[in-house]
C-alpha cells in the first residue's frame, strides 16, 4: 500500500449513486491522473455519509473539507484549487440554513455536530469493499478479544451490561434474548441478521450494510459465539442489490483471511454465513415470518411462544438481530458494555440511527445518543422546516409508529417515552410534516401501506386494516359521519390487541396517535367538510376572484380538462363539475386570482 498525502472520499451510498457519484469518482480519477496526482491522492468510494440530500458528497482528507452536490463539472476546480493549490472551493461548502454561514469542515456542520456515531462509525470513512480498511479502524479486534479471553459468557455479560436493546423496532433487550437462546437445549443454533428493512423512507440498515458490512459480520460472529451458533443467515431484501453485493464481498474477504469459516483465529470456533434474499414482503421483517421465508415456506408469521430463541429456524434455537443492533456489538465487546451504557438514558442505552425525511431542510441519516430531544433532532440536526412553513407533526417508527405534534417535541428519544406518547422507536424512520400535510391523509397513507402488506393470515389484520382504511377514505373523501371517529378508535384498539404479529398489532398506531393529537382536524373533515391543510381533494374547490381576475386567459389555456371558461378581458369562471383540482391554474395565474377554499 502506497502512502498518500490526501484522500478524496466520495460517498457511494445508494442515494449518492443515484445523484451521480460514480461519474464524479471517474472524473476525479481522470483529473488526478492528468495532473499526475494519482500517486499522491487516493480516491475512495465509501459507504453512506448520511447527508444524502446534499449528495454526491465529497470529503477531502486530511482537512476534512466537505463538498456538497458535487458534479463532474466541479471536479477540475476542486483538483486545481484545493488539491493542487490548497485553496478549498467555498462555493461547494455546506450552507447552514438559518445563519447562511458557509462551513468548510463537516464536523462543524450542525447536521454532524450533534451526532454520536457508534453503529455508523465507519460509514463514509472506509472503503466498504476493502477488509483492510475495516481492520485498520479496529475491525475484528472485538472478535479476537472475545475468542481470546473469557469465552462466550464474557461476551454475553458485556452485552447485558451495555443495556443494548433491539434496534429493529420492539426494543427487546439483546442480552436477554441471547441468554434465552444460549440456555435453550439444541444440537444446532442459528444467528440471523434481519436486513429486511421495509419501512417507507427508512434506510438505516441498507446504509450500514453498504457502508460497513464487516461490522455486521463481526457482530454476527460475536453473537454466534455467545449463543453457541455455528451458522448464520443474512436475510437481506432483494431490493438492496448494492448491500447484497458488498456483503458478498465482505464474506469472501473474511473467509480469505480466515476470519470466517472453520477454526477462526485458531481458536476452534467455526462459523459459516449465508445470504438469503428476501422477496419484498414487508411482513418478512417479522421474525417468525422471516424464519418461514428462509425455510422456503410462505413468509407468514406464526404464533409466539415458542419464541425463536427456543424454537426458531428449522426448529432450532435462533437469535434474530437487526443490522443496527449487530453493528453496535463490536464496539460494545471491544470497549466494554459500561462505556456503551454511559451513552443514553436509564433504560435506553447507546445511540439510535434515524432516517430523517420529509419536509425539513437537512434530510439524511443521523445517529444520535438516546435521550436527545426530538426537537434537537428535527430543528438542530435537521435544520427545521422550510422557510415560512410551520412544523405540524413528526411520524416516528414508520407505518407501525405514531404521529407526534409540536407539544411532544421535547420528549426524549427513548423506547419508553415514545411508546408512552403513542408512537414507537421502530426501526428509525422519522418523517417530518409541515402545515401542508393533512393528518388524516397521512393516517390514510400509512394504512394503505399496512393493508397492502398484511399477510392475510389473521382476521383483525386482514379484514380490519381494510376497514380502517375505508373509514379513513370516507373521511378524506368528504363522506365522513360523526360515528366514524368512534368506530375508528374501537376497531383500532381491537386490531392492536388481537392481531397475531407485530405488523397487525402496530398497524393502527398511526390512526390512534393522529386521533389523539389531531382530533380537531378529523372533526373539521367530518363536521365542517373541510381539510385545513388543503390536501383532501374532495374537501376543497377553486374559485376565481372576480376582482383580481383580469381575463388574461392563461388559466383557461393551462387547464388540462378545459374546466375554465370566460370572455377575454372578463373575469373567468371554473366549472367545478369538470375541475380535477390539479392546481395548475393556481400556479400559473399571474394575478393570484384563483383561490382555494
Amino acid at each position, binding site marked *: 500500500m502506497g502512502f498518500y498525502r490526501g484522500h478524496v472520499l466520495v460517498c457511494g451510498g445508494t442515494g449518492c449513486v443515484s445523484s451521480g457519484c460514480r461519474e464524479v469518482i471517474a472524473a476525479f480519477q481522470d483529473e488526478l491522473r492528468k495532473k499526475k496526482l494519482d500517486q499522491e491522492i487516493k480516491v475512495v468510494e465509501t459507504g453512506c455519509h448520511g447527508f444524502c440530500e446534499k449528495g454526491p458528497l465529497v470529503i477531502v482528507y486530511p482537512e476534512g473539507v466537505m463538498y456538497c452536490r458535487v458534479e463532474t463539472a466541479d471536479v477540475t476546480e476542486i483538483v486545481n484549487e484545493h488539491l493542487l493549490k490548497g485553496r478549498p472551493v467555498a462555493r461547494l461548502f455546506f450552507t447552514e440554513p438559518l445563519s447562511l454561514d458557509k462551513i468548510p469542515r463537516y464536523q462543524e456542520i450542525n447536521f454532524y455536530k450533534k451526532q454520536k456515531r457508534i453503529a455508523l462509525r465507519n460509514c463514509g470513512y472506509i472503503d466498504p469493499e476493502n477488509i483492510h480498511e475495516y481492520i485498520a479502524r479496529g475491525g475484528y479486534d472485538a472478535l479476537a478479544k472475545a475468542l481470546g479471553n473469557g469465552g462466550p459468557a464474557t461476551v454475553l455479560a458485556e452485552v447485558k451490561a451495555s443495556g443494548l436493546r433491539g434496534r429493529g423496532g420492539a426494543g427487546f433487550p439483546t442480552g436477554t434474548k441471547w441468554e434465552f437462546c444460549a440456555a435453550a437445549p439444541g444440537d444446532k443454533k442459528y444467528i440471523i441478521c434481519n436486513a429486511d428493512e421495509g419501512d417507507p423512507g427508512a434506510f438505516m440498515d441498507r446504509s450500514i450494510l453498504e457502508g460497513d458490512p464487516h461490522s455486521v459480520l463481526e457482530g454476527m460472529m460475536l453473537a454466534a459465539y455467545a449463543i453457541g451458533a455455528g451458522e448464520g443467515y443474512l436475510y437481506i431484501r432483494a431490493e438492496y442489490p448494492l448491500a447484497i453485493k458488498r456483503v458478498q464481498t465482505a464474506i469472501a474477504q473474511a473467509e480469505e483471511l480466515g476470519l470466517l469459516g472453520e477454526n477462526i483465529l485458531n481458536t476452534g470456533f467455526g462459523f459459516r454465513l449465508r445470504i438469503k434474499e428476501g422477496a419484498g*414482503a414487508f411482513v418478512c421483517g417479522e421474525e417468525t415470518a422471516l424464519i418461514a421465508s428462509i425455510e422456503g415456506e*410462505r413468509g*407468514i408469521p*406464526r*404464533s409466539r*411462544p*415458542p419464541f425463536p430463541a427456543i424454537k426458531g429456524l428449522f426448529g432450532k434455537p435462533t437469535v434474530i438481530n437487526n443490522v443496527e443492533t449487530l453493528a453496535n456489538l463490536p464496539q460494545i465487546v471491544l470497549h466494554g458494555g459500561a462505556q456503551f451504557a454511559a451513552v443514553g438514558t436509564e433504560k435506553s442505552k447507546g445511540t439510535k440511527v434515524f432516517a430523517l425525511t420529509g419536509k425539513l431542510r437537512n434530510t439524511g441519516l443521523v445517529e444520535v445518543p438516546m435521550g436527545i430531544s426530538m426537537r434537537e433532532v428535527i430543528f438542530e440536526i435537521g435544520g427545521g422546516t422550510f422557510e415560512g412553513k410551520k412544523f405540524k407533526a413528526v411520524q416516528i417508527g414508520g407505518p407501525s409508529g405514531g404521529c407526534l405534534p409540536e407539544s411532544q417535541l421535547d420528549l426524549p428519544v427513548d423506547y419508553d417515552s415514545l411508546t408512552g406518547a403513542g408512537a414507537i422507536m421502530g426501526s428509525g424512520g422519522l418523517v417530518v410534516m409541515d402545515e401542508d400535510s393533512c393528518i388524516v391523509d397521512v393516517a390514510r397513507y400509512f394504512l394503505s401501506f399496512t*393493508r*397492502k*402488506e*398484511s*399477510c*392475510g*393470515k*389473521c*382476521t*383483525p*389484520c*386482514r*379484514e*380490519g*386494516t*381494510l*376497514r380502517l382504511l*375505508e373509514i379513513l377514505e370516507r373521511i378524506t373523501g368528504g363522506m365522513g359521519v360523526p360515528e366514524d371517529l368512534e*368506530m375508528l378508535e*374501537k*376497531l383500532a384498539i*381491537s386490531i*392492536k*390487541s*388481537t*392481531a*397475531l404479529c407485530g405488523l397487525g*398489532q402496530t398497524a393502527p398506531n398511526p390512526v390512534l396517535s393522529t386521533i389523539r393529537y389531531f382530533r380537531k382536524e378529523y372533526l373539521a373533515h367530518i363536521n365542517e367538510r373541510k381539510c385545513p391543510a388543503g390536501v383532501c381533494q374532495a374537501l376543497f374547490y377553486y374559485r376565481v376572484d372576480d376582482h383580481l381576475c383580469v381575463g388574461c386567459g392563461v388559466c383557461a389555456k393551462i387547464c388540462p380538462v378545459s374546466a375554465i371558461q370566460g370572455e377575454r378581458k372578463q373575469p373567468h369562471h371554473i366549472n367545478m363539475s369538470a375541475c380535477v383540482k390539479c392546481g395548475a391554474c393556481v400556479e400559473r395565474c399571474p394575478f393570484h386570482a384563483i383561490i382555494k377554499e
Partner: protein
Amino acid sequence: METVTLKIDGREVQADKTATILEAARLAGLQIPTLCHHPALRPDGSCRICVVEVAGARNMAAACIAPVAPNMTVFTNTQAVREARRTNLELILANHPLTCPTCKRNLNCELQQLAHDFCISDVPYNGRRREMPQDHTSAALIREPEKCIYCGRCVRVCSDLQGVNALGIFNRGFDTEVGPPPGLGLADSVCVQCGQCAVFCPVGAIYEKTAVDEVWRALADPYRHVVVQAAPAVQVSIGEALGLEPGLPLTGKMVAGLRRLGFDKVFSTEFTADLTIMEEGTELLGRLRNGGALPLITSCSPGWIKFAEHFYPELLENLSTCKSPQQMFGVLAKTYYAEKTGLDPANIYVVSLMPCTAKKYEAARPEMNASGFRDVDAVLTTRELARMLHEASLDISRLPDEEFDAPFGIVTGAATIFGASGGVAEAALRTLYELVNGQEMPTLEYAPVRGLDGIRESSVVLGETEVKIAVTSGLATAREVLERVRNGEADYHFIEIMACPGGCIGGGGQPICRTCDNRGARAAGIYQVDAHSAIRKSHENPAVKQLYKEFLGEPYSHKAHQLLHTGYTARHAY
C-alpha cells in the same frame, strides 16, 4: 405428565405443561368460542375468535395456540375479551355473503352459530367485499371462495392429514385466496376428491357437488327402474346426519326410508364387497403363488386410487385390479341383474349411497362403463340422503325396519366391516384363512387390524406362507407406508389403504361433526352390525355363490375380468 398450575377466571387449574390455554380451560369446564381451531388439526391461531386476556401481557392471546405457563392468570370472559371477539366476528361477517338460508351449510355452520351466540344484529362495515368465481370443475366438490373465511382448515387437512397439498393459500392481505394453485380448477389439480376439506370447512366454502336433483328426476320418471346401493358406512351415520345418536345402526330404517323415497329396489354395496373379497382374495393368492407384484394394495377407495396415480405411479402395478364394490355393483346391475329380471339396462338407473365424495368422481371415470353404459349413474353422500329425507318429510326413526331386496341385498358381516379402516383386511383374512388353512379363523374378530389411526401391522400364516399385512387410513399416513415400500424397507404382502382417516366411516360425504369425535362411535356401530350378522364370511354369501354359478363362473374368470377388474393411469403431480 408434568403439570403446571394456572388460574383461569379466578379458578386454579392443573394442566399438562404442553397444553394450550384452550385445552386447560376446557378441562376446567370453561368453553371458549373457536373458529379456525379443529382438534384433529395442528392449531393455527389465525381467526382470533378465541382470544383471552393474560395478566401482564401486552396483547390478547389466542387460546387455541398459546401454551399454558406456570402461574399464568387468564381471563376468558371480560368485557374487553367479548368486545374483541365480537369485532373479529363482525370483520369476518363483513366479508362473508349473508345468504344463510340458501347456503348448503345453513343450520350447520360454525360462523352462523357464532353470530347467533354473539347475537350479532348488524355488521357495521359495509365496504369492499371479495368477489371470486365459484369452482365447479371437480366431479365431486364445489368451491365457493366468496364464503371462505381463511381459517385454513381445508389447507391443513389436505396437507397434514391427507398429504395431498392440493389446496394452498395464495396472494396476501385482503386479497388472500385459498384453493388450488391460481388459475387451476380443483379438477386440474392433484385433488383426490376425498372431501375431507368439505368435512373440515366450518362454513359453506367447499361442499359436495350434489346429485339430489338428478336422483329426484330419475325417481319421478316412470320409465326408469331406479335401484340404489347403500355402502356399509351409511347405515351407521345416517342417523347422525338426521340429528340422532352417532354410530347408531339404522340399517332397517334406512332401507324403509329409501323405499319410501321411491327407489324400485334397495340393495347393498356390501354384496359387491363380498364379491371383492372373492376376487381380491384370489388375486392375492395368485400373486403369492405365481410371484406377482407384492405387496398387493387394496383398491376400494377412489381417493386413494387417484392419490396413487398422482404420487406413486411406480406402484400402480401393486394395486389390486379389482374395481371398487360401488363399480362392481354398477356393472352387475346393468348386466347380471338386467338379464335376470329381463329389464333393458338402458332403463336401469343406478344410484349409490356413499359416505364418500370421491365416489362421485369414480363413477364418472371414463373407463367405468363395462356394462356398455355408465355403470353408476348418480352418487349420493350420506349428507345428501339426509337432505332428501328432510325434503320428503320422512322421519326414518318412526319407520319399521325393513330388509334389503334380493339378490343384491344378501350380505355378510365381513362386507359390513369394509366401512371401517381394517375391514377389508379382516374380511379377506376370514375367507383366505379358511380357504387356505381348511379351518375357520380362531377368532373372527381380528383386532390387530382394527383402529382409527396410524399404521397397524400384523401377520397371519396362510398355508406355508407368513403373510404380512399393513393397514392404514388417511393419506398422509399412507405416504409413510408407501415410502417404505418404495424404498424397499417393507416386506408386506398385503396393504389396506383407505383415503379417509378411520376409513369410510370418516369419509368426506359423512355428517359434518365439529370434532371428528364421532368416528369411534360409527366404527363401533359397524362392528356391532357385523357381530349380529347371520353370515360373517364373504365366501359363505349364498347370493355371491349363485352369481358365480349363474353368471361369472369362478373368481378371476375371464368374464369377471371383463366386468369387475380395471387398470390405472399414471398422472403427473403438476
